[in-house]
């Protein structure tokens, strides 16, 4: 099982390495200084003891410096080469020394330095054989620091452990006073400070690669690591220290050998038992903690399994070699496969053109340990493609294995397509609306959407408008107005209709808008947006103003007309009333005169009186006809269905007094019904028929013909006679007021009758005309427009 290095231990070891290097280096340097200055206490622990040989000191300096360089992974290659060269030199020195010892051939390398001083000494200082061996071991250890482990044992650590064992053995020998442990046979022994330097350097060398071999456990944060860290120093230090104390006490004679041994055992047992008990208690606590963590892990594994089995997302495990080892039902369904297909190659589910992308994905996975969810495609067994969202995570500990989570996006994609279609649909509606449309966000009232009509009206592109508010676009006063309305809509939540609001535009000046504003709310009724639709009613308003002006003009004309009519009425009223009175008086008093002086009047006077009366009467007739004529123009029309035949018969009867004693042939055709004012039409017929009677009085037999000719659109009625006729040259004068073609003494008349006919027929929407030849009779026509009812009736009759 993997365990991370314990951080505190790592710190301690790195400091220990530095300290070891510096201490070994320092001890050796001091020894050399001692040789140089001839200070014995620097060369060895005591003046009588064996001193450190100068060559040994040099080798130690080299090894210390070498380890200082090699311990740091950041050292440059050049320095490493130098450091290795130093280590190799030391190995060579040690090897030569050993060779010399074993072969018996004298090689006085250790006598080269400080040769004079060495010669002065009672016992010549040499390099001890065990020292030489430790140099070989340590040197080789330096050289093999980064060589890989063999069966879990890095060679460097084996070498360093061996050197440590020899150095510690020598140290213990010095402490206990047992020369056999620091000397070999009759050879000179290892110096005590050499042994100490060796011990420190060996430990430093061991600790320089704490992530390897034995030290991995020692430094790990696992319970084993903790146990090793706590018990190992105790196991090393306690026996040595207690044995030494016991030996010291025994030598001093405090107690005998037996008592000493017993004491030693007792004192050794107590701290060890305490230490073991404390450690066991800690281990127990750690184990419980671990157990709890395992339970938690197990439960979260169950949760993960639930997630996988729930099939909400597709889950697979696979490897970078292209295999899918496990897949849940969701994934199998997504890719159209079954459990029987597992395991299968995942690249079979990948589109061919995505190979490069897959490579990139795998390298990202290897590099970062995970691949963020991204959209992709999977190919089903039948070849169809499914859009998916994929996220990958590397499985820790298993090289190249990963777990992938796959979500089927096809329904979402379909929804997106539908959404796009809908959006395009709405866009095309909004963009083609002739009215300005805009949407503002509810919070800051900034434009988030406008349509083309808005761009045109405001004369600016939407890029320049979106994100802005009314204050960026309009004069302050208008912006205040718009904003107040917007807020009112958002607060009330109801549609607001603003029949007319002015707006300043860049290109078109001041425009008038009819605006409707309505809030767009979310599910809770909170307003999200404000939608506005504005219709440009400027032209409409201008047109309305024009129409109003026209109406005003028409009304004023009508008023003037009304005034004129009133005046005319007053005039004719006055004519009717006041003009007739004098005539009546003229005629009345003439008559009274005749009655009064009847017998005394001569013939001439009597005739004058008659002429006075006639003149008064004819003027009265003129006035009456004129009044009728004017009344015809003003009187209300009573439109109804009129039976022409009945009307003609009635007129015939009323004219009977004028026809007595005359020979008249009446030819009256079958006459239709017409639409019009009966009284007025009677006046028309009376006029025409009276004329016909009047102008045929010179004929022995008068012939008067009345007929009608109904066409699609109008009914034409004529009255024809065989009377004196008229010259067509003057026909345009026939229907004028006071226009006469005959002299008063030939045919009496006021000259108003036909004018009246024309006025009445015109008021009916018809026409009048006449045909005639002098002395060959005349025909007078009038037409009346037909209403739809009459047309239908005529068709049925036909």
């Amino acid at each position, binding site marked *: 099982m993997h365990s991370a290095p314990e951080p505190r231990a790592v710190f301690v070891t790195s400091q220990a390495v530095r300290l070891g290097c510096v201490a070994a280096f320092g001890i050796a340097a001091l020894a050399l200084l001692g040789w140089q200055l001839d200070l014995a206490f620097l060369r060895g622990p005591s003046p009588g003891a064996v001193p450190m040989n100068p060559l040994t000191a040099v080798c130690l300096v080299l090894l210390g410096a070498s380890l200082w360089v090699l311990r740091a992974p950041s050292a440059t290659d050049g320095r490493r080469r130098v450091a290795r060269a130093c280590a190799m030199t030391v190995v060579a020195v040690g090897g030569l020394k050993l060779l010399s010892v074993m072969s018996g051939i004298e090689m006085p390398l250790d006598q080269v330095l400080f040769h004079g001083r060495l010669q002065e000494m009672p016992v010549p200082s040499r390099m001890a054989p065990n020292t030489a061996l430790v140099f070989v071991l340590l040197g080789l250890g330096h050289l093999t620091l980064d060589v890989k482990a063999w069966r879990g044992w890095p060679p460097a650590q084996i070498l360093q452990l061996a050197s440590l064992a020899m150095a510690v053995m020598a140290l213990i020998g010095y402490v206990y006073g047992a020369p056999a442990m620091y000397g070999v046979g009759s050879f000179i022994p290892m110096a005590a400070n050499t042994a100490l330097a060796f011990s420190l350097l060996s430990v430093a060398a061991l600790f320089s690669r704490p992530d390897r071999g034995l030290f991995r456990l020692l430094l790990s944060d696992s319970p084993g690591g903790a146990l090793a860290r706590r018990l190992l120093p105790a196991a090393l230090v306690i026996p040595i220290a207690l044995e030494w104390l016991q030996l010291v006490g025994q030598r001093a004679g405090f107690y005998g050998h037996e008592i000493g041994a017993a004491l030693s055992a007792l004192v050794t047992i107590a701290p060890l038992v305490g230490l073991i008990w404390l450690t066991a208690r800690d281990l127990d606590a750690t184990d419980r903690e671990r157990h709890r963590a395992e339970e938690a892990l197990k439960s979260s594994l169950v949760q993960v399994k639930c997630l996988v089995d729930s099939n909400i997302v597709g889950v697979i495990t696979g490897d970078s070699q292209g295999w899918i080892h496990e897949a849940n039902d969701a994934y199998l369904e997504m890719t159209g496969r079954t459990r029987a297909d597992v395991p299968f190659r995942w690249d079979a589910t990948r589109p061919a053109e995505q190979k490069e992308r897959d490579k990139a994905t795998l390298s990202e996975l290897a590099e970062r340990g995970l691949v963020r969810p991204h959209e992709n495609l999977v190919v089903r067994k039948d070849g169809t493609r499914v859009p998916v969202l994929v996220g990958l995570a590397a499985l820790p500990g298993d090289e190249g294995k990963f777990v992938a989570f796959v979500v089927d996006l096809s329904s979402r994609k379909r929804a997106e397509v539908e959404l796009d279609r809908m959006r395009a649909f709405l866009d095309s509606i909004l963009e083609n609306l002739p009215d300005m449309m805009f949407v503002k966000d509810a919070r800051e009232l900034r434009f988030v959407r406008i349509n083309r009509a808005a761009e045109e009206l405001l004369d600016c592109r939407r890029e320049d408008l979106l994100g802005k508010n009314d204050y960026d676009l309009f004069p302050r006063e208008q912006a205040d107005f718009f904003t107040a309305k917007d807020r009112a809509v958002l607060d009330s939540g109801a549609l607001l209709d603003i029949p007319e609001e002015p707006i300043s535009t860049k290109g078109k000046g001041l425009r008038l808008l009819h605006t409707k504003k309505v809030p767009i709310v979310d599910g809770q009724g909170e307003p999200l947006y404000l939608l506005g639709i504005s219709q440009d009613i400027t032209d409409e308003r201008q047109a309305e103003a024009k129409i109003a002006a026209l109406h005003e003009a028409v009304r004023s004309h009508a008023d003037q007309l009304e005034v004129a009519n009133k005046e005319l009425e007053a005039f*004719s*009223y006055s004519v*009717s*009333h*006041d003009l*007739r*009175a004098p*005539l*009546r*008086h003229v*005629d*009345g*008093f*003439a*008559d*009274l005169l005749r009655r009064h002086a009847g017998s005394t009047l001569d013939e001439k006077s009597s005739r004058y009186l008659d002429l006075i*009366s006639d003149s*008064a*009467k004819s*003027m*009265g007739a003129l006035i*009456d006809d004129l*009044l009728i004529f004017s*009344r015809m123009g003003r*009187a209300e029309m009573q439109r109804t269905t009129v039976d022409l035949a009945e009307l003609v018969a009635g007129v015939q009867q009323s004219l009977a007094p004028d026809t007595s004693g005359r020979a008249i042939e009446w030819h009256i055709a079958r006459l239709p019904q017409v639409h019009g004012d009966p009284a007025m039409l009677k006046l028309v017929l009376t006029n025409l028929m009276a004329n016909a009677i009047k102008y045929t009085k010179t004929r022995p037999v008068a012939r008067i013909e009345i007929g009608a000719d109904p066409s699609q659109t109008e009914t034409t009625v004529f009255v024809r006679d065989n009377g004196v006729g008229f010259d067509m040259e003057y026909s345009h004068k026939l229907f004028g007021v006071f226009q006469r073609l005959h002299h008063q003494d030939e045919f009496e008349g006021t000259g108003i009758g036909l004018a009246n006919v024309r006025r009445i027929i015109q008021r009916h929407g018809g026409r009048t005309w006449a045909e005639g030849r002098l002395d060959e009779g005349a025909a007078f026509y009038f037409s009346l427009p037909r209403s739809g009812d009459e047309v239908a009736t005529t068709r049925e009759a036909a």
Partner: protein
Amino acid sequence: MKPGLKRVLYAEDSAKDVELTLAALEQHRVANEVVVARDGVEAWDYLCCRGAYADRAKGNPALVLLDLKMPKMDGLEVLRRMRADETMRSIPVVILTSSREERDVIESYSLGVNAYVVKPVQFDQFIDAVANLGLFWAVLNEPPPGSVRRAA
């Protein structure tokens, strides 16, 4: 002369018309039973026995002839007042006028006139019309109670 009670009240501003009308009425000898008012106000004073007629004998005329167009107060106004007055409501009123205007005719009848006579221009016709009027209203017609009766 103290204005006495006459059977016919004739309101007419034109002196010539008065003379012609009286000449016509003379034929039936009712002329001396006619009192002439020269305008509407005078006619109304007579009817109400006030002003110049404050001292006249009490009683309503049997017939009132009214010209339409008169100074101060026109004939229609006199007619309107008469028809609004309890005691004069039932007096027969004949409009005697030159106007053939339809609106005059309609308004007169709507105010409750008993007859509307247009004065003809021809004198003989005028005489006939006035004479017939006098004959009918002043002689043949039984006036409402309180009116002046023809002297036996």
